[in-house]
């Protein structure tokens, strides 16, 4: 467990010190939540209707901001070679990095969302559902994102291509995540929590293996 924790704590410290961490993502998230009302108008009824969806899209986009550096930074400065030779397996490495990404980005975004939901006049139960859906769904964003970050780790301008690859795959997360808030708003059970949980579990369980495979392919290049 020590190598795993060593890598996890290093990545968390790096995200705090070298920018691209929670602060950047939160500011971006807040900006999206500010711009949308400015774009669609101040009608609170309309904002309450679109709010949970907008916040979900904003959170997903904010989580992608620093994703391209997840493996690329370590690949470029040679750290990834040393990590690959350590007793920690590449699967373990991938899991540590996914967890670090979620702790440094996904979790702060989740905790910040109730504050931003004020802009959209969401009801308290809707805010609860939205926050819960982000808590369940953001690990999937990190997990799916890690697969594509590892695939593009050798691409020089990976930051440009990465959102193009990740966002289509995040369609189910956004749909089911925002669907949880819809369930509360309409009062009709629609099964969104179950689907979101299933997707999130599946993604987080599979991702370390696919990510490790992609890292292996890239180290061989």
């Amino acid at each position, binding site marked *: 467990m*020590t*190598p795993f*924790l*060593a*890598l996890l704590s*290093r990545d968390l*410290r*790096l995200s705090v*010190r*070298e920018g691209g961490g929670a602060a950047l993502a939160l500011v971006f998230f807040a900006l999206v939540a500010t711009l949308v009302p400015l774009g669609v108008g101040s009608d609170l009824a309309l904002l309450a209707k679109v709010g949970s969806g907008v916040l979900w899209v904003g959170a997903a986009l904010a989580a992608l901001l620093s994703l391209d550096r997840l493996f690329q930074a370590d690949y*470029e*400065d*040679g*750290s990834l*070679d*040393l*990590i*690959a*030779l*350590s*007793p*920690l397996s590449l699967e373990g490495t991938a899991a540590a990095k996914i967890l670090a990404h979620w702790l440094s980005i996904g979790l702060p975004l989740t905790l910040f969302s109730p504050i931003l939901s004020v802009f959209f006049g969401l009801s308290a139960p809707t805010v609860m559902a939205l926050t819960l859906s982000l808590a369940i769904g953001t690990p999937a964003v990190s997990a799916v994102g890690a697969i594509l970050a590892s695939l593009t780790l050798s691409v020089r301008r990976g930051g440009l291509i990465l959102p193009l690859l990740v966002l289509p795959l995040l369609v189910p997360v956004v749909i089911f995540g925002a669907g949880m808030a819809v369930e509360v708003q309409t009062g009709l059970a629609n099964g969104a929590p179950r689907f979101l949980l299933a997707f999130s579990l599946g993604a987080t369980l599979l991702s370390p293996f696919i990510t490790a495979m992609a890292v292996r392919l890239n*180290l*061989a*290049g």
Partner: protein
Amino acid sequence: MITSLTAEKLAVQRGSRRLAENLGFTVKAGQALALEGANGSGKTSLLRLIAGFLPAAAGRVTLTDDGREISDPEERGRFVGWLGHHDALKASFTVSEQLAFFGKLYNAPSAGSIAGDASGASPVTTGEEKRMALLDQAHLLEQIGLARQAELPCRYLSAGQRRRLALARLLLTQRPLWLLDEPFAALDVAGKGLVARLIALHCGQGGMVIAATHEELGLGNEVLRL
């Protein structure tokens, strides 16, 4: 204890380009092998192949550990001490944080137990060797000439100091098979002397060294030309 590394009919291929073919060599415990060749001749690729990153296009590499043959590349990697082109340092980490991270990542034994382990594994004879065996971080930094910089973030280190820190990490990981890519690069005369001494010491303790370099390793070492 690692006793030998053997390559048979090895072919090195990067992408669609065949860099070297039909390579064969054996390195035994206590020996150093120098890889020489022009730029692009495949020295780095061969090192990456031995480390287990790059699959062999043909032939095989076998590591013998206590009579047991290891041919799985990833298992072989667990014996490798790696010094690559890049120093693999994070600008915002201090020298000692850097070493502490890799120490934990590699499960390197803590200061007290290392002294016991190292002296048990190989008889300590000279004073120099005994000091090397005490791989306490402070000792290590003193040994490598970075004691004063211990709390300095890596972004303020010179190229030579970065290289020395990478060497300190190599010692810290306690791996028997050293793979060094241009170990003398960016180092001054004193630094080069240090590298030569460390290699001699590592071989003296029964380790193995394979280095891609233009310069003498400071041993009566064997040379493989690519």
